[in-house]
């Protein structure tokens, strides 16, 4: 049984649910939620059925529908089915489904419940499209759709100025990366004459010099898209701000799916990157990882800490791609999706229990009040830190090992990766110790209660893969397609990551066990402030990019106002108005005047007709 229609069904079910909710069930909250959840859960079930029926590598790798045909150009709307996309399909529908269910509880009191689920379904649809796309154009379209739906979701509480700003910031920053992505696509199109991934891959295999000197440029431009979507170093600023959206949205977008799309893209088109491009990618990833980890050390908002941690982990993944090891990148992406979604949902559960309090210094002692949430959160944190046995340990270990590989890696990258791993453990232990242990630091924390089942069950559901994903052979699965990881330095890498975990945990324990307030600012002073202020990136952008942008805008505005509107438009309309004013004198509204003018006209006509 081939079940060829199933992937299409999986893809379009969320769209159907989004359309139905928008058009028909706006008023019926419960039905909307059920529709949306039903769409994604059945998507998950159908994915499982499809994989069960066809295995991880279906005989027919692509299904095609010709979508556009203009002259020579033929654009297919096709689905690519291989271990990479199928596994991502499971991750997206699985983690997404869990988050959907969690949202049902978390958003219960929201006014725009139906709209929320419509946007969620739309987002799922776009994400699935990115995952399943078999060509650049289709991917780009869904890529943009992801941008739009994430804009809608981040700005869900658009009444709040900060949320509206954050959604705009996310969208615009993404567009910046997407612009590069589009240029890259155009270059590839121009050189390869087609957009299909497998077609280009085949062409490149046969003739590596196909693109000539443009290859690096095309790769880097496509990497721009990933930089935007995965919030890598220069364009990372939108992701922390995007925490203004509802927490499940943060979980969905910033842990499991949207930001992962960038990494997924890199892996999907890995064949296109040349060595110089890979170097750039690796360093961008490394810098992002280090910088985000450093910032995370001094953040107090639970969601922001997780956001920077996400950035840091994404840096890891990009680093892995950059050292030509897409398998660990995808592996880490998958495990990260589990534990980061778990952490976000746990944070959401905490935030909801504390009535939307997000400052970790106003929490504490939650392990007693919310045992399940705390336990699952600790599991997620352990996975993130890479505590041996948890999923994160395996994936991160592979990346650290890959960073040392002789062809693409270097000692610098290895040390950076190890340092970031240490920092990760440090800030996660800070977060866990401050938020869940020690004394209750506010009344809200004192009176917190465990969240309802609809929220706790997803946490449990995610905690299992977070803990155990390392034993499923995911890496082997990816490896089949992307090539085996370089495992020659496993011992050294394992030692480094173990050391990082132990050191980071010890440091965190020492500083934050039962701490009343953050002791770090006193110890390192201005460095802490700099970290707290996120290395002044926003301010830097404010001073440079935005200033420049404002200047250009002012010039354009001047041109528009004085040349276009002033000289051309106002000139034309001024002339018209002057003539109109002159003519208006004739319209007195007085019958007598009209009669007089009429008589005058008659006199003139009579003179010419009769009087001569």
């Amino acid at each position: 049984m081939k079940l060829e229609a199933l992937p299409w069904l999986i893809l379009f079910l969320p769209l159907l649910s989004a359309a139905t909710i928008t058009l028909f069930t706006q008023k019926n909250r419960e039905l909307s939620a059920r529709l949306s959840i039903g769409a994604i859960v059945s998507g998950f079930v159908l994915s499982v059925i499809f994989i069960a029926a066809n295995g991880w590598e279906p005989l027919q790798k692509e299904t095609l529908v010709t979508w556009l045909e203009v002259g020579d150009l033929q654009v297919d709307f096709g689905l690519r089915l291989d271990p990479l996309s199928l596994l991502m399909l499971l991750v997206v529908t699985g983690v997404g489904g869990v988050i959907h269910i969690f949202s049902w509880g978390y958003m219960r009191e929201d006014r725009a419940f139906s709209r929320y689920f419509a946007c969620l379904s739309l987002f799922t649809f776009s994400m699935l499209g990115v995952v399943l796309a078999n060509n650049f154009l289709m991917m780009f379209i869904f890529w943009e759709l992801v941008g739009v739906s994430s804009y809608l979701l981040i700005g869900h509480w658009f009444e709040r100025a900060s949320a509206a700003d954050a959604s705009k910031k996310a969208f615009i920053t993404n567009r910046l990366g997407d612009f590069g992505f589009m240029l890259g696509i155009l270059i590839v199109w121009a050189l390869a004459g087609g957009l299909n991934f497998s077609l280009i891959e085949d062409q490149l295999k046969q003739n590596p010099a196909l693109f000539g000197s443009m290859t690096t440029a095309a790769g880097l431009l496509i990497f721009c898209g990933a930089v935007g979507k995965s919030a890598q170093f220069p364009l990372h600023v939108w992701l922390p701000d995007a925490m203004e959206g509802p927490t499940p949205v943060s979980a969905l977008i910033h842990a499991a799916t949207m930001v992962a799309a960038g990494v997924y893209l890199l892996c999907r088109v890995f064949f296109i990157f040349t060595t110089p491009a890979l170097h750039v990618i690796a360093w961008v990833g490394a810098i992002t990882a280090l910088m985000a980890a450093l910032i995370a050390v001094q953040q107090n908002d639970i969601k922001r800490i997780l956001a920077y941690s996400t950035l840091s982990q994404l840096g890891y993944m990009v680093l892995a791609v950059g050292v030509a090891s897409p398998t660990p990148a995808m592996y880490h992406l998958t495990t990260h999706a589990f534990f980061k979604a778990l952490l976000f949902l746990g944070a959401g559960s905490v935030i909801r229990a504390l009535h939307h309090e997000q400052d970790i210094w106003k929490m504490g002692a939650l392990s007693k009040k919310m045992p399940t949430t705390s336990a699952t959160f600790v599991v997620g944190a352990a996975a993130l830190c890479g505590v041996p046995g948890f999923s994160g340990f395996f994936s991160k270990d592979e990346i650290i090992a890959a960073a040392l590989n002789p062809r693409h890696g270097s000692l610098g990258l290895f040390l950076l990766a190890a340092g970031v791993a240490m920092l990760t453990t440090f800030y996660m232990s800070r977060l866990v110790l401050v938020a869940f242990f020690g004394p209750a630091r506010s009344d809200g924390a004192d009176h917190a209660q465990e969240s309802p089942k609809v929220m706790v069950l997803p946490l449990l559901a995610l905690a299992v893969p977070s803990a155990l994903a390392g034993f499923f052979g995911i890496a082997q699965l990816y490896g089949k397609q992307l090539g085996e990881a370089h495992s020659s330095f496993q011992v050294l890498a394992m030692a480094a990551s173990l050391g990082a975990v132990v050191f980071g945990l010890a440091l965190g324990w020492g500083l934050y066990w039962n701490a009343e307030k953050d002791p770090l600012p006193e110890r390192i002073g201005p460095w802490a402030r700099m970290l707290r202020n996120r290395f002044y990136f926003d301010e830097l952008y404010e001073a440079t990019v935005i200033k420049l942008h404002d200047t250009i805008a002012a010039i354009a505005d001047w041109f528009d106002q004085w040349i276009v509107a002033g000289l051309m438009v106002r000139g034309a309309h001024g002339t018209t108005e002057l003539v109109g004013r002159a003519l208006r004198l004739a319209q007195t509204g007085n019958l007598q005047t009209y009669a007089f003018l009429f008589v005058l006209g008659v006199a003139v006509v009579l003179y010419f007709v009769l009087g001569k």
Partner: protein
Amino acid sequence: MHIGLEHYLVVSALLFCLGLLGVVLRRNLLVIYMSLELMLNASNLALVAFSRFNGHLNGQVMVLFIITVAAAEVSVGLALIVALYRKRQTAHVEDLTTMKL
């Protein structure tokens, strides 16, 4: 001098111009209307004179038509004036300048 067509035409022309003068100068809507009637009558006179001096009755038929149209026109016009007066309490053209910008 024997009375000919020209005499009647002159009377008609003078009467017509009197009516025109009234339309141009008077500011009472009703008087303007009367002046219009004068103009119509002047044309009637010219037509009857033509009819008489050309030995043909077409002119007189035209006059009949003109009289009929004038009656219709006056009735509608006066009804309009009354309606206007009800709205504005005036039949003075200088007060009826709503269409003015």
